[in-house]
C-alpha cells in the first residue's frame, strides 16, 4: 500500500489543479470552499462532471466529488436522486444496465475508469460491493468467502484468508464450526455480514455499500454499523443510505444528493447535520420535504 499512498498524493495535487480550474456548475461551488478533506487524507476515488443518463432521463447531474480514503463517506438523499447510481458508477456496475450512459470522468487511483483500456472486471477486483438485500451464493459459507479469491487464482493459504475475513466481518465466532453449511441457513444479519466478509476477502481498497442494513432488523443493523466503523480503519467505505440517523452515526463525510441527481453539498458529517450551508439541505435534514 505504501507506494500507492505516495502516488495517490502526487495525483491528488494534479486533480486539485483540475478541480480548482473548474468553474463548477450547479450547486457544486461549495466543493473548493468546503474542501475539508485535509491534506493528509488522500482520495482514491474522484469524479468530475459526471453525468449519467438512463435512456433519456438524466439520473446524475455534473457530479464532482472526492471520496477520502480510509473514511466512511455516506451518501444520503430522497429516493431516486441518484445515490445508488453514483455508487454503481464507481465500479462500473452500471455497465450491466443496457440503457445507462455515462459522461464525464471518474478516477480510481488517478486513472479514469471509463477509459477504453480499462477492463471493468479488473476494476471490480479492487473494489468490493455489498448490496441492499443479502445475496450469498447458494454454496457453503466457506465457498462464499473463498469465491473471490478463487476466481482471481489467489488460493494459497485459503483457509487462513477465509478465517481472517470472517473475523474482520465479526462473523467468525458464529460460524467457525459450520463453515461447510449452506450460507442460506444463516439469518439475514448473518448473511449480510457474510456478504461483507466475501467482499473484503480479496482485500479491495474501496468497499461500496448500497443501503446494506435497510433489509435488516434493528439489532442486525447496529451490528452492521459497528462493523462499518471498524472497516474504515483499513478500507475506504462509501455507503448509500436513506436513513439519516445512520449516516449521522457512522460516517465521517456526508454527501447530500437531492432530486434530479444533483450533489448539493458534501462536507464533514457534523457540519452537514448541524450547520449545513445550503438551505435545501437544511430543509431535507429537518424533514421539511422528503
Amino acid at each position, binding site marked *: 500500500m505504501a*507506494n500507492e499512498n505516495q502516488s495517490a498524493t*502526487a495525483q491528488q495535487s494534479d486533480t486539485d489543479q483540475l478541480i480548482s480550474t473548474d468553474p463548477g456548475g450547479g450547486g457544486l461551488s461549495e466543493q473548493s470552499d468546503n474542501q475539508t478533506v485535509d491534506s493528509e487524507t488522500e482520495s482514491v476515488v474522484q469524479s468530475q462532471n459526471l453525468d449519467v443518463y438512463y435512456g433519456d432521463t438524466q439520473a446524475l447531474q455534473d457530479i464532482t466529488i472526492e471520496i477520502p480514503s480510509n473514511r466512511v463517506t455516506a451518501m444520503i438523499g430522497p429516493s431516486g436522486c441518484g445515490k445508488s447510481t453514483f455508487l454503481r458508477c464507481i465500479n462500473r456496475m452500471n455497465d450491466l444496465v443496457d440503457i445507462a450512459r455515462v459522461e464525464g470522468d471518474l478516477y480510481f487511483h488517478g486513472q479514469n475508469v471509463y477509459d477504453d*483500456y480499462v477492463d471493468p472486471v479488473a476494476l471490480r477486483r479492487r473494489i468490493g460491493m455489498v448490496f441492499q438485500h443479502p445475496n450469498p451464493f447458494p454454496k457453503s459459507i466457506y465457498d462464499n468467502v473463498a469465491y473471490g479469491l478463487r476466481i482471481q487464482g489467489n488460493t494459497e493459504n485459503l483457509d487462513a484468508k477465509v478465517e481472517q475475513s470472517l473475523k474482520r466481518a465479526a462473523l467468525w465466532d458464529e460460524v467457525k464450526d459450520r463453515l461447510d453449511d449452506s450460507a442460506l441457513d444463516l439469518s439475514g444479519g448473518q448473511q449480510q455480514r457474510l456478504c461483507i466478509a466475501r467482499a473484503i476477502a480479496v482485500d479491495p481498497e474501496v468497499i461500496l455499500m448500497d443501503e446494506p442494513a435497510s433489509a435488516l432488523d434493528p439489532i442486525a443493523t447496529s451490528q452492521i454499523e459497528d462493523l462499518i466503523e471498524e472497516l474504515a480503519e483499513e478500507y475506504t467505505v462509501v455507503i448509500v443510505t436513506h436513513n439519516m440517523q445512520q449516516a449521522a452515526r457512522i460516517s465521517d463525510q456526508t454527501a447530500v444528493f437531492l432530486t434530479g441527481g444533483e450533489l448539493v453539498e458534501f462536507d464533514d458529517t457534523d457540519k452537514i447535520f448541524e450547520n449545513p450551508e445550503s438551505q435545501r439541505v437544511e430543509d431535507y435534514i429537518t424533514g421539511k420535504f422528503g
Partner: protein
Amino acid sequence: MSNTIDLSGDRGSQDLREGIYGVVFFVCAAISVLTTIGIILALVLPTLTFLGEVPIREFLLGTQFSPAIQPTVFGVLPLVFGTLLITVGAAAVALPVGLLTATYLSEYASHRRRAVLKPLLEILAGVPTVVYGYFALVYVTPLLDAIPGLELGTFNALSASLVMGIMIIPMVSSISEDSMSAVPESIRNAAYGLGATKYRVSTSVVIPSAVSGIASSYILALSRAIGETMIVVVAAGQSARFPDSISGLLNSFFQSTQTMTSAIVQLGTSDLAGGTTAYRALFAIGLTLFVMTFVLNVVSDVITMRYQEDYE
C-alpha cells in the same frame, strides 16, 4: 501519472479462453438458424424442379391427386381437404372441451384439484402419436362402428379426428388457462360487486378478457393438428378425395382420407425412384404444409403480442 495498479485487465490466456467460450456458445445457438435454412432449402429446391414439371395451377388448384397410378396428376387440393377435414373434426372436440377445461381450472377448481389435474392433462399430450393412431384404428373405430346407423370403413377420418382432438386438448386448455388466470382479481371483484353470479363472471367477464390468449391457443392447436402425421397415417387411410357436394363432404368423415402429411409419408416410403416427379411431389407438399403451419404460428404470435391485454 504513474500507474501503480493495472486496470487494463490483461489476463493473458484467460482472456483467450473467455473468447473461445463465447464463440462456442454462439455456434451452438447459430445451429438453430442453420436448421431453418436447411429446412427451407430441403423443401424449396426440389419443389422448384417439381414446378418445372408440373404447372403450378395444376398443383395448387387441381382436385385430383394420383402420383403413381396413370394418368398421374398432382393436385394438392384433395390433400388440403383431407387435412382440413381432420383438423375441423379435431377442433370440434378440442376447442370447446379445452376452453371449458380451462374455465374449470381457472375459475372453479380448488388449488388441490388444479395441482392434480394440470399435470394429468399434460399426460394427454405426452402419449406418442403412433399410439394414438393405434388406439383410433383398433379401439375407437370398432366402438364407433357399433353405433347403429353409423357405417364406418376400417380407415376413416372420424376416428382419427376424434383421437387427435383428445390429443390437442391440453394445448388449448393450458394456454387458455394461463390467459384466464392472468385476468386480475380486481376485474372479477368488480363484477361480483355488481351482483353477478360466478357463471356470469366466468363467461361474460373473464373469457372475453382473456380472448387473445384463447384465440392464440386455438390457432396453435390448429397448427398442431395440421402437422400431425402418425394418427392419420395409421387410422385414416390413404385415399385422396375431393368431394363434389355437401353430402359428399359430410360423408368424407366416414371414409378413408389422405392428408398432406400422410401423402408425404406415402410418397417417402413408396418404391418411387429418387429422381422422379412423383417423388418430388413429396417436397412440394411438404413446402405447402410448412408454409401453412408457419403462417398459423406467426399469426398466433402476433395475436399474443399485439392484443395482449394490459390490465394496469
